[in-house]
C-alpha cells in the first residue's frame, strides 16, 4: 500500500525515526509484528525490508502513522534516510507472530540490543497499557556505545526498571547485557519470570542459553533475510529443533519473528 512520509528524523548519529502516513493500515498492532517497506515501482533496493512496528499513532492530519526506528546501514536504510516529508513509499503488513503475553499478572524481563529496541519498546508500552496493573517490568538494554541505546524514554514511561550496558562503557555499565542479566536472573523465583528479547544474533543466542540454563521461559524475536514477509517465498527459514533425521526449518515471517527460545537451533 502507498504511504507518505509524515516525518523522518535523526534520533542519534546512526539511528532515525520514520513515520509513514498509511490511511488504510490497521490502526492497532501487537508488539513483535513488522512491516515490509520498499521504494515505489521497481526501485533500488529491489526487495522490501522488514521493520518492526515501533508505534502506530495519529500525527497531525494523518489518522494512521506507522512508526519505525531504523539504523542506517546498507542500501535499504540509506534509501530511507534520504526520504523527505511527503514522498511516497510502499508499505505492507502488519506481518508476523507477535510476542505472547500471559492472560494475567506477570513479571516481564525485557532484553533489547541495538536495533532490537523497537519491538521491545512496543512491548513495554503494550504491557503498561494492559488491564493488569500488577505487571512488573525490568528492561535490559545493550549496545556498542551510548549512541546505540535507544528507547530509554519509552521504558521509563512504561514504569520499567532499566539496566543499561554498553561495550565501551559510555553509558551504563561496561559489558554485555547478559553480564547484568545473569545476576538478575539468579533468584529463587526465576521460573516465574518471562523474558522477551530482540537484538543481534549473538546476543539472542547468549540470552537463550541463559534462559535454558536457568529455566526462564524466553521469547525471542529473530531476523532473517526476507523477500516477501508473508510466507510466499520460503526464503526466511530458521532451523528449529526437531526429532528425526535432517534439519527442520520454520519461516521467520510467518511462524515468527517471535519464537520460544528453546525452539531455535542456535549457531
Amino acid at each position: 500500500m502507498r504511504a507518505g512520509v509524515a516525518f523522518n528524523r535523526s534520533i542519534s548519529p546512526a539511528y532515525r525515526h520514520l513515520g509513514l502516513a498509511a490511511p488504510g493500515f490497521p490502526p492497532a498492532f501487537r508488539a513483535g509484528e513488522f512491516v515490509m517497506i520498499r521504494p515505489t515501482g521497481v526501485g533500488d533496493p529491489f526487495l522490501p525490508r522488514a521493520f518492526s512496528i515501533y508505534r502506530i499513532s495519529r500525527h497531525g492530519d494523518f489518522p494512521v502513522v506507522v512508526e519505525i526506528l531504523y539504523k542506517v546501514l546498507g542500501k535499504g536504510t540509506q534509501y530511507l534516510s534520504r526520504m523527505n516529508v511527503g514522498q511516497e513509499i510502499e508499505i505492507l503488513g502488519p506481518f508476523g507472530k507477535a510476542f505472547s503475553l500471559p492472560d494475567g499478572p506477570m513479571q516481564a524481563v525485557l532484553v533489547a540490543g541495538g536495533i532490537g529496541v523497537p519491538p521491545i519498546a512496543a512491548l513495554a508500552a503494550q504491557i503498561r497499557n494492559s488491564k493488569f496493573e500488577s505487571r512488573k517490568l525490568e528492561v535490559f538494554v545493550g549496545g556498542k556505545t551510548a549512541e546505540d541505546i535507544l528507547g530509554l524514554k519509552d521504558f521509563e514511561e512504561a514504569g520499567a526498571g532499566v539496566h543499561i550496558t554498553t561495550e565501551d562503557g559510555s553509558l551504563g555499565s561496561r559489558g554485555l547485557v547478559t553480564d547484568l542479566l545473569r545476576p538478575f536472573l539468579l533468584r529463587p523465583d526465576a521460573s516465574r519470570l518471562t523474558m522477551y528479547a530482540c537484538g543481534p544474533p549473538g546476543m539472542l543466542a547468549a540470552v537463550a542459553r541463559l534462559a535454558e540454563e536457568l529455566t526462564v521461559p524466553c521469547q525471542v524475536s529473530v531476523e532473517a533475510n526476507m523477500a516477501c514477509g508473508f510466507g510466499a517465498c520460503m526464503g526466511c527459514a530458521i532451523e528449529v529443533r526437531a526429532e528425526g533425521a535432517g534439519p527442520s526449518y520454520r519461516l521467520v515471517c510467518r511462524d515468527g519473528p517471535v519464537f520460544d527460545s528453546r525452539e531455535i537451533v542456535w549457531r
Partner: protein
Amino acid sequence: MRNPVLTASGTFGYAEEFEPYVDLNRLGALVVKTITRLPRAGNPPPRVVETPAGMLNAIGLQNVGIEAFIRDKLPYLRRLEPPLIVNVAGESVEDFRDLTKRIGDQAGVAGIELNISCPNVAGGLDFSTDPNLAYRVVKAAREATQLPLIPKLSPNVTDIAAIARAVADAGADAVSLINTLVGMAVDVRTRRPKIGNVTGGLSGPAIRPVAVRMVWQVARAVRLPVIGMGGIVTAEDALEFLIAGATAVAVGTANFLDPTAAVKVIEGLERYCAANGILDIRQVIGSLEIPRRSDQ
C-alpha cells in the same frame, strides 16, 4: 483461461498465502510451488539475498510432499476458479512418471508443469541441460497422463531451442521458461557466500532480457505454446514476452514485492488493448516486427 497471466511456481506459495491481498479468481491460471514425492525440509539459510534488480534464492524445494499436498492443499485450490497447474519435480525419470500419474489422477488439476530445471537441488538441473534426458523425462510423464504437460526449461544452457525441440518431440503440450539463472554472491565482510547453498537461482527484472531472448528463440523453434517468465513486474514487461512469441506469461519474483502484482499486470494488459484498439490480447502474440534493412 480468462487471461494469459499465470503465477510462477514457487513465488505464489499454494495461493492461500495471497488470499488476504488479492482476488485469486482474477488470475489466468494458478501454478503452485514445486511438489516432490517426499516432503523436503529445504536448504539451510540464508536462502534469499537481494542482487541488482533481482534476487538469488536457494529454497531447496521445501515442500510438504505430494501426499500432504493432495490431502491438505488441493481441496482449497480446487475451489478456486482459475485452472490449477501443479508443478512437480522428481529425482529420476521414474519419479517424474509417478508424480505425474499421481497428480494427474486428482480431480481439479488442469495441467502439470514438470520442473526439470530447479538449480537448487543436487542433480535438479541435469534433466533440462541435456536434450536426451529432458526427452526421457517428458516421455515418461506423457505416458502417465492425458493432462496438458508443460516442461519448465532452464536458461543455463547453450542451446535452449534444442531442449525445447526435445521436449516437443516427447509430447509436451507447452513449455514454460525461464527458470532461474545460476548465480552467486559473496559477503566481502565475512568472505562467505551470501546464500547457504553457495549458489542460488537469479530471478527478477535483471534476467528479463535473457528470458525474452529465450522465449523468442523457443517460440520460433517449436510449434508449442510458450509460457514466458523472468522478471515480469508490469504489463509492459509482460507485453515484451507476448510480442516476442509467448502465448501466456507468469509473474514470479514480483509477487514478493507486491502480492497484487499479477492482477496489476492483467489490468495493465487490458488498458494496453483498450488504448491500442486491440480486441483480443492474442493478437499481440508473436507480433514482433523486425525491420528489414536493405543493407544488412
